[in-house]
């Protein structure tokens, strides 16, 4: 099981990212993080599984995040390049304009050094590669200064 940092703690990650959308949504195992386009068939909702999340890239438009998607317990922004700062604005929009209250996660090719910034933008968990320097990740989260704005 991979690791995640959630609410400032390093813990085992029960979730598994699924790359291919399934035809029948009920086939997704529990704790799957499913690509956004694998959830857009409204006729298959409500989902029988309680624990399903959705993942999407940083270029996702807000209109694609429907009420149904917002009802999921986990949304995961997947970062291809750490230099692509759209991830921060997207996280901010999800957590504020769309008022998402579930677990907001970042995965992919982000820098551990960016974690405090993501957190300030409303991200609540991070999925980390197995070879990550967990100590550095915790250091960044604990020591980054808080802004007043």
């Amino acid at each position, binding site marked *: 099981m991979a690791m995640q940092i959630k609410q400032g703690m390093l813990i085992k990650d029960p979730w598994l990212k699924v790359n291919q959308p399934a035809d029948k949504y009920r086939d997704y195992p529990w704790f799957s993080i499913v690509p956004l386009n694998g959830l857009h068939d409204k006729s298959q909702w409500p989902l029988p599984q309680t624990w399903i999340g959705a993942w999407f890239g940083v270029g996702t438009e807000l209109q694609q995040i429907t009420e149904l998607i917002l009802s999921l317990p986990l949304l995961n922004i997947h970062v291809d390049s750490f230099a692509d700062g759209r991830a*921060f604005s997207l996280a901010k929009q999800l957590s504020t304009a769309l008022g998402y209250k579930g677990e907001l996660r970042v995965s992919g090719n982000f820098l551990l050094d960016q974690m405090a910034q993501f957190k300030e933008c409303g991200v609540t968990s991070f999925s980390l590669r197995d070879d990550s320097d967990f100590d550095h990740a915790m250091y960044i989260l604990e020591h980054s200064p808080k802004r007043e704005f």
Partner: protein
Amino acid sequence: MYHYNENDRADLQARRQIFQHQLQRYLDGKISDEEFRPIRLRQGLYLQRHAPMLRVAVPYGMLSSSQLRALARIARQFDQGFCHISTRQNVQFNWIAMEDIAEVLGMLAEVDMHSVQTSGDCIRNITSDAFAGVAQDELIDPRPYCELIRQWSIGHPEFAYLPRKFKIAITGAKTDRAMLQAHDIGLRVQQHSQLGKGFEVIVGGGLGRTPVIGSTLALFVPEREILAYLTAIIRVYNLHGRRDNKYKARIKILVKSIGIQAFKKQVDEEFKHTQEEVSFLSPSRIDSIATHFLPPPYEQLDSSYADLFLITLKRKNPSFSRWLKQNTHVHKIGGYRSVTLSLKSPNNAPGDVSTDQLLAIATLADQYSFGVVRSTHEQNLVLADVRETDLYALWKHLIQKDLAAPTIGTIHDIICCPGLDYCSLANTQSIPLAQAIQTRFENLDYVYDIGDLSFNISGCMNACAHHHLANIGILGVLKKGAPYFQITLGGRKGNESTLGKILGPSVAEHDVPNAIENIIQTYLSRRQEDERFIDTYLRVGINPFKEAVYGHAN
């Protein structure tokens, strides 16, 4: 000027410790060059020709004498005895070894200075009018807003990885001395009869490879909404600016491609949300910052006495008289003047200042100008609050330190980027060309006859010396590997910002002084009465200058 409180210091300390940790990880080989790059850049560290270039932030150009002394110590101990004032009012060191960086950052922190966000694709140091708070034409002192936006933008979590760098300038004067229209965002502080204080917001200006004059996005945004409005603009840019091509990634390209109206619509839409999420600016917050910018304890001076005093000295001493005319400026308080210390002596590279000079300036600032110095985007320094009766004594000191070249605003006051001598992006050298021009126009009477003229030299398309906005602009290019220089004429900064026009084919390095001489001669032969270079140019057009340089107008 603004004085750090305990929170500011704790914040700076925390950022510095994190960077040291990151630097150590890099030096230990735990992260790649690619991953370290954005971290290093956000700390103002460029990998240049000789050593990393460290760019130190000078918030809106304000420096205390103790900060100058710290810069002098760093220059002496870790550099080659000088530093450079950049065209964004910052300070650059070119010779600091990587392993000394942590110690240098520590020395800066002791005087509340840092290099955070002086490079990288983030919101850069806020720039302003070098005469803020003392200019006679100022309506509102912009510095409290500069400081507010500095605090807001440092470490901004959402805007640390923008498509490209992002520059904000602010002024509160009638005359724009901060080049608002050449910035990603330019803010003009205003007083509205009903709505109180607020800002005209200009967006999408910038020079570089695609020079654009910024357009007005909003005529008036109330003070309390400004942070929410800035958030909306930069969020739209962050989400929609191009990331596939770094030459097309600035906000100006986004605004140009969709048009200012469509851009405004997107910003207004986003503003609905940001108004909810960014708390309104409370008057007490800005008031508490404004207490740092209260006027210093000016004396009530008898200007007529000072006038008499200066008239006598001027009569006796023509050199002093010239300096007084060129290098000092009217002050809003009677009996005081602002003084520009020229960093354009022909003996130095433009904008360079030595340890010895820094220490002397710190002492002069304490003695004559309430301990504060300002840096200008023209790469000079300013003592803003000097009693007129002290001017002669100050001038004597400045002469000794080679800081009194009486040529501010003339063809000698060249704005010049570091070019190939330091910069790894450069096509050509800039500094030797600046020196060649100064040598060609050696005779000061001739220089005064030519009069007001802006002359800027950039060593490549990045246009760090803002050559597009110069009356005479020079850009270094390569032709089959050889250095050539493209000349532009007619650029203007300020309220009537205009991009210069390319005169014609670029000229070889050794031909540039002749070409400039021909341009100047054309101006002198065509000018009417006291017309400035730019006015003659506007009246006669570019063709006579083309003929003078190329022998024909086509």
